[in-house]
């Protein structure tokens, strides 16, 4: 199988300094956040790669870098062999943009409330000149709505006439309009109730099977990630700490942070099971800890972890960034 998306040493730095005048008067320094700090992974064609992590770990920034909503500070995004990060920022990016689409978290904020569904879904078709003529457009929009389980007649309604789950289906139909190969889904079900989440996840899986779609799926919910993905990357403070296929990650998590996350999930089928209490909180990303950024919360940290930043090493098919795992201490 070939990699459709290859991310190499991706980095994004945001300048979060105070305004110029405050910096001068209050003598404040420039401040930068390394939202994404040297992230590399590949996604095989037709597979689902998931990024998990807590809020502020940089998962959404990776998503936005991949579709070109942000330009990377450093590093490359190769899409089907093309340097996507560069091309998406240039005039030639249009052809590429057609091949990748994004689904956002909040179905209330990501649809224009003043546009009927017809306008929302036909916009990408018209923008890319894929379908000519109103009659043909109507047919195509109807087909797209049908593919996500809505009725063709729904195209004349406005977003407020739909429930959260239905709106997220409209987002999916819009993303599918240009016939993309690659969908970036940023927490597509976090705003939905569980029964509705099941509907949306099922549709996404069906579409992937029918059309051979490739997904980057971003979520903080490990149970959802386990259900949809083939391989998983765990992020902590802008870095990937572990990449493994689904079975390995859930059966034998290597990195202490992955173990901690897995322990933190309340499990409905093991009522009364005592969880390992997770220690501490995510540090301030403005001032991340030295060495391995997880060391202040890690039960296995030693002197080396505090000074030397671990790189991703491949061990038995799993990529882990941890000195303790490398040294065989855990």
């Amino acid at each position, binding site marked *: 199988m070939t990699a459709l998306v290859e991310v190499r040493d991706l980095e994004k730095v945001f300048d979060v300094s105070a305004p110029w005048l405050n910096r001068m008067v209050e003598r404040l320094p420039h401040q930068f956040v390394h939202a994404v700090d040297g992230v590399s992974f590949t996604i095989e064609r037709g597979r689902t790669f998931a990024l998990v992590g807590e809020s502020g770990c940089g998962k959404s920034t990776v998503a936005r870098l991949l579709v070109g909503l942000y330009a990377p500070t450093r590093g490359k995004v190769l899409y089907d062999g093309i340097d996507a990060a560069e091309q998406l920022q240039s005039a030639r990016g249009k052809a590429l943009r057609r091949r990748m689409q994004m689904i956002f978290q909040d179905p209330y904020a990501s649809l224009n409330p003043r546009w009927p569904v017809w306008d929302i879904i036909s916009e990408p078709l018209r923008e890319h000149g894929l379908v000519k003529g109103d009659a043909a457009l109507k047919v195509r929009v109807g087909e797209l709505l049908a593919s996500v389980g809505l009725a063709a007649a729904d195209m004349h309604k406005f977003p407020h006439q739909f429930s959260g789950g239905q709106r997220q289906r409209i987002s999916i139909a819009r993303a599918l309009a240009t016939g993309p190969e690659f969908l970036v889904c940023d927490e597509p079900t976090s705003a939905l109730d*569980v029964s509705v989440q099941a509907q949306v996840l099922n549709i996404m899986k069906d579409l992937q099977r029918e059309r051979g779609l490739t997904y980057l799926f971003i979520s903080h919910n490990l149970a959802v990630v386990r*259900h949809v993905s083939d391989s998983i990357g765990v992020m902590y403070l802008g870095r990937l700490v572990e990449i493994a296929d689904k079975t390995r990650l859930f059966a034998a998590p290597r990195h202490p942070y992955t173990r901690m996350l897995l322990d933190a999930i*309340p499990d409905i089928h093991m*009522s009364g099971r005592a969880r390992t209490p*997770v220690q501490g909180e995510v540090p301030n990303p403005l001032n991340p800890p030295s060495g391995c950024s997880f060391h202040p919360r890690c039960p296995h940290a030693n002197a080396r972890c505090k000074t030397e930043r671990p790189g991703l090493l491949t061990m038995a098919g799993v990529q882990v960034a941890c000195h303790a795992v490398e040294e065989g201490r855990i």
Partner: protein
Amino acid sequence: MTPLLEVDHLRVEFPTRHGRLVALDDISFEIAPGEILGVVGESGAGKSLTGAAIIGLLDPPGRVAGGEIRFDGRRIDKLPYEEMRKIRGRHIGAIFQDPLTSLNPLYTVGRQLIETIQTHLRVSQAEARQRAIKLLQETGIPAAEARLDQYPHQFSGGMRQRVVIALALAAEPQLIVADEPTTALDVSIQAQIISLLKRLCKEHGAAVMLVTHDMGVIAETCDRVAVMYAGRIAEIGPVQAVIHAPAHPYTAGLMGSIPAMDEDRERLLQIDGAMPRLNAIPAGCAYNPRCPRVFARCREERPDLMPAGSTRAACWLHAPEASR
């Protein structure tokens, strides 16, 4: 044991221009002293409203239109505002979803804690301060004495929720109504807060009504659980029974739609459609248009809670044979 809280056929209505909306109908349950009751359901099912009705904080024009709420044998749903204020905080504590909006940003954490303690208990300023420090220590806040003089914005989300829990426990209430206490927090912090809440309530002997949409949290924390749907209780019973042998088709659907950590399924069980709006609740059982096991009676007659195995469910499938 006599129940601490009895909710008896509670009905909450919102008068609107287009008629009265019945947001809660025929809600009945009890909470025993020291017990943790979970209330679970999807958005709009009425779980938070049930909590608000109990602590007497229904947003107008919402009002209790029928039924009774009794606390420690005393009826509290018709109490005048000032009377209810004395109960709220002193006997019934509350924890809300968003720890930032439930703390006053202009007052130090210590001032809010001390004020709460002195409002409800007759202690001196110094004693109240000592109690506040002890409470913060109990909730696992490091350097409690120094933190007392800080403002809420100086605390992280998880730490703020610890402060809110300390506030709720300040006057040693017998019941705590916790409305989605962990929803705004990250998973690793959620686990900390849930185990903290469970431990403290046990130590202080407080009963808890835990409102959440997270079945996992319910499974780990609660003794019994009530599943709500469209303003009514669909099923109520011991946690294990409701999770492993749900009697109501809605509970079964809800459980099947949650991706599980210990089994592989290609597709999740899905409940088609969505919960009806309050102004369009179907006749008969509110769940009948989505129910895979619907039959004629479900469309005509509304089921009350009836014994179903080890739980009680509002479903005609469990009606005694004779009356079916």
